[in-house]
């Protein structure tokens, strides 16, 4: 019968929040209130990341099935440049590290300048990554590596630039968060915003590791 189980009784809100606190939310005890009110948002963002991961996973799978479809056009060995891919990897890894520093600065309530400093460094590294990636694409285009050339290149250009697009989005979000920080100070939405952006940033780092190993290293080996 109806499982619509209703008995209006008071309950203890704090006790309940203790019980359901999500382990992924790592702001530390100093920010207990933010954790209680915002942990749903962070959990939701994790779920969104799962969904996004499916998209990348499918594009990876598609890329692998299209490896043979070069149609006589240039392949990985003609197009990829290990040096530049390595620089991009290092930039992105470094940016993940600096974002980690920013998270620590937030967690232990160090002064806001330090938080902003690390965030800005992260942003600069992200932009530098994008710059190198675009430069890479430009070189590829010059060498005949355009997506309309073959199924293989189409698969490449549907996977790698999507990651770049994500990084662009993350950078815009970072700028927006810095703006919010300037206007409202370090309030709860800004804190959880930084937390969610951190998840996205590290996620993009992991996806790039996948791209680097599978597309670049795999292609050149």
């Amino acid at each position, binding site marked *: 019968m109806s499982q*619509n189980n209703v008995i209006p009784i008071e309950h203890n809100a704090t006790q309940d929040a203790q019980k359901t606190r999500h382990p992924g939310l790592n702001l530390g005890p100093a920010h207990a209130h933010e954790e209680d009110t915002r942990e749903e948002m962070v959990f939701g963002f994790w779920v969104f990341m799962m969904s996004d991961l499916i998209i990348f996973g499918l594009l990876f799978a598609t890329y692998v099935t299209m490896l043979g479809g070069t149609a006589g056009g240039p392949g990985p060995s003609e197009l990829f440049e290990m040096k530049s891919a390595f620089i991009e990897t290092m930039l992105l890894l470094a940016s993940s590290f600096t974002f980690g520093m920013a998270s620590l600065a937030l967690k232990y309530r160090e002064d806001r300048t330090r938080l902003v400093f690390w965030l800005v460094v992260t942003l600069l590294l992200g932009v530098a990554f994008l710059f190198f990636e675009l430069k890479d694409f430009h070189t590829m285009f010059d060498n005949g590596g355009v997506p309309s050339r073959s199924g293989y290149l189409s698969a490449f250009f549907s996977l790698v630039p999507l990651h770049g697009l994500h990084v662009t989005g993350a950078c815009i979000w970072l700028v927006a968060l810095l703006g919010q920080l300037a206007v409202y100070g370090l309030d709860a939405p800004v804190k959880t915003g930084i937390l969610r952006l951190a998840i996205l940033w590290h996620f993009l780092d992991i996806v790039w590791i996948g791209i680097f190993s599978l597309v670049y290293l795999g292609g050149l080996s």
Partner: protein
Amino acid sequence: MSDAMSSIFGRLGWDALPFWSMLHDHSPMTLINGVIATGAAGMVVLGALAAIVLVSWLGKWKYLWSEWLTSPDHKKIGIMFIVIALVMLARAIIEAVFMRAQQAVGLDGGFLTAEHFGELFTTHGTIMVFFMAMPFLTGIINYVMPLQIGARDLSFPVLNQVSLGLTAAGAALVMISLVLAPFSTGGWTGYPPFTELSYNPGAGVDYWIWAVTLSTLSSTLTGINFAVTIFKKRAPGMKLFRMPLFTWTALCTAILMIFGMPPLTVATGLLALDRYLDFHMFTTDLGGNMMNYVNLFWAFGHPEVYILILPPFGIFSEVFATFSGKRIYGYKILVIATMCIAVLSFTVWLHHFFTMGQSAHINAAFGIATMLIGIPTGVKVYDWMLTMYRGRIRLSVPMVYAIGFIMLFVLGGMTGIILATPSVDYQIHNSLFLVAHFHNMLIPGLLFGMLSATNFWFPKAFGFRLEERWGYRAAFCWIIGFMLAFFPLYVLGLMGMPRRSVAYFEPQYLPWTIMAGIGALVILCALLCLLLQLWVSIRDRHANNVFVGDPLGWPDAGMVGLLTAAGIQLPGAARDLQH
């Protein structure tokens, strides 16, 4: 000048108007099809104008804006989803009637052009899946689920608005395609390379791509929202295994949306890259491979059918229990069966293309995996029967739909097992047998579920009960119309009649297509009965007031203000009526 025009209007020209070809070509076929297309376009334009005039005349713009369009209330968003679904349902049923009418006279000809028929089956399928079924079940879950788990709203109310907005935009795009034609003729599956630019250069496929993409984005966000809500916002003490069954199915559907929608986003996105930026993902030349599309599409498509069918399972669980005056039989078993179905639904996508030439091992493995889904589904059917067993069964309107569902759905399940057998599928794939099968799952399953839920929870939403006489008529028309319209298609499929064919040359088909055409008319009657039921219910609302509601969830003031002048305080609880 023409440069300026083309930079403003792109490739949109006068020839996009549905009556344009009629002005230049006066052959009877062109005239008939032009008149039909123009009539449809006229209905869209007039409908939009009528809505604007009506709201202005009532002076309700401000009310509409602040109480509905910008409201984050899950109940109102749910109702708006259902309104979209009902409008689109009406359009797609009318299209179905045209198709069945065409085939009823389609021996060696008929009155529709092949092009027009192609647009009809494409829009019918696209609308029914993405703009009828999805909004309908999203709306019902939106309305009911937070109330069932004692949440004041969804976890992300504004995201919920965005989901609604994206679905509304997609539905509007499909509607616009009637006025500024054409729509795709590639079917709701949009298989390349037929949908590639080289074979289909017009705007039609692009309409399809973007409408579907908007819908999938909406559904992904909705899925996230529902899942987080169910995990995080349950009332204190409501453990997972104390959740109502409908909420359980909503959870499974939400999880399927999160994982099942991205493949379609990827598929349509890559097809768009092919068409817009000259990529070669699915083209025949330059190393493209259309089989990737087929895999991506059905990696979405199969979970999708369970996204569609699980919420009705939940609804029927509530309906059977309520109208048998009895607890649901085997609550835990039902939950486990639901979870089994949700998991298995990701392991069977290949059965949609047994005929593509993969090895017998793969075909057989996927055929068996498909049959495994039959086990938990069969168990659920028996659980519902045992719920009625030793009860006190009242044949209310929701119950009539439920009984129609249980009797017809097992037949659909049987034809599903037949289709899951690769050796037999080689005979009936792409035939009307397949069409009959999935309509057999989706009409008694999904649609009856949705209509049952509408009748069941309507008093809760609006504070008055739906009129029953027209409700019964609608339900019986649906059941009879369904049987008349789709059982003949099974026969036609066995005779080898392909789906999507505008005409045929075998006189043996004729009696069956005529019978199906009559069935379509009965379904049209069912639609009219539904409209009359709504009209009569609103007219007589004061006699059917429901005062007592359910304290779960905070009722927003003005909840039912649009339909009842009474300004009812708290929506009534339908299920409480039934004990």
